[in-house]
């Protein structure tokens, strides 16, 4: 058994390791250990690489493994951590949120649109976007999901495709403002938003 007590860095942000990674790929000396997201905080575990290397991890407390971490490197091989893709919901707040409001019958308007100056409109748009975003965040938070924001996508894990329907129902009041779909991808929560399901 090969014992790994420290992570050497990550191929995605360490140029030297990225170079070694490319070399290892060419030399066919790259090995991967695939873990689940639930294992990223484990500091003691025994795993077998895709090329059957037996590896025992004994890592410092609070180590958080990430996709692309280098567990081992010598002249003969490089072992990296791969995070297994998982089912997630990808939610998007529609960019044309402002128009949705204007497309309505205007009954919500309690003052005269014609007198709005540009800044006021912009303010209303921000206000409405914030309103929708907070409601979406509140709903996801109520279900104790970890979260990742990628561009305009709000991503959180689900256990079954059916859960999309649950969220459509929970967010039914916002259906004109949000798109939601299921996808399978590598999910790494944003720092501070890695809460555990209740």
């Amino acid at each position, binding site marked *: 058994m090969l014992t790994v007590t420290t992570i050497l860095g990550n191929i995605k942000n360490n140029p030297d390791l990225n170079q070694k990674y490319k070399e290892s790929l060419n030399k066919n000396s790259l090995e991967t250990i695939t873990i689940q997201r639930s294992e990223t905080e484990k500091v003691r575990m025994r795993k077998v690489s895709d090329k059957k290397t037996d590896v025992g991890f004994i890592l410092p407390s609070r180590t958080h493994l990430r996709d692309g971490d280098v567990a081992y490197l010598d002249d003969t091989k490089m072992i990296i951590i791969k995070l297994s893709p998982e089912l997630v919901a990808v939610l998007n707040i529609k960019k044309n949120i402002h128009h949705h409001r204007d497309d309505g019958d205007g009954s919500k308007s309690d003052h005269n649109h014609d007198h709005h100056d540009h800044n006021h409109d912009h303010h209303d748009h921000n206000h409405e976007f914030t309103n929708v975003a907070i409601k979406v965040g509140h709903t996801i938070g109520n279900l104790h999901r970890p979260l990742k924001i990628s561009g305009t996508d709000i991503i959180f894990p689900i256990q079954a495709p059916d859960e999309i329907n649950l969220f459509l129902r929970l967010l039914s009041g916002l259906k004109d403002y949000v798109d939601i779909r299921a996808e399978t991808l590598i999910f790494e929560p944003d720092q501070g938003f890695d809460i555990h*399901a*209740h």
Partner: protein
Amino acid sequence: MALARIPRIGIGGPVGSGKTMLIEQLVPILKKEGYDVGIISNDVVSREDADRMRKNLATERGLMPEDLVIGIATGGCPHTAVREDPSINISVVEEMEAKHPNLDLIIIESGGDNITTTFSPALADYFIYIIDVSGGDKYPRKRGLGIETSDLLVINKIDIASFIGADLSIMERDAKVVRKDKPYVFVNSKTGQGVKKVAEQIVKDVLFDAPPKSVAAN
């Protein structure tokens, strides 16, 4: 230098699935191999399980000192004490580590809970989830975080499967599908059948086949 962290396993599962009895079968097997074990047992409102294990394993059988079985009455939802905020368990684990640095393993038993129980990796290195056949053979197929993400799935009370019409081959087939290549073991904690396999998994995956500390020291 900080004390070396003693390997820790967490055992979770529904009320009455056999968590305590599994530990009572497991500790003598590990002790026979020379491994010294400490136990922390969470209960919701009592310390009954800890008292029972202390009496059985320490007082009557002398397999461990009495102060190595500690009970914690957690109140509230049991999973909160092993996942959302495991600080009370961590503090007891660290106290045990400081007092007994030569332990090979610490077992943390959760209070009986639901199928989404998991252990915080800050608390346990290895998570055993135990269910029993009396819930029906549909149980593994219905999934849940415990069944899916645990490092080892233990299916207990196989001796009563025929009485309640549970088909073990269905449970095995579904466990394979749901857990992919992760291990599962059928046991009867009353007689100890299958528990040796649980011990073997622990020695391999948690202790990395290392000899007991008491043996290594000599």
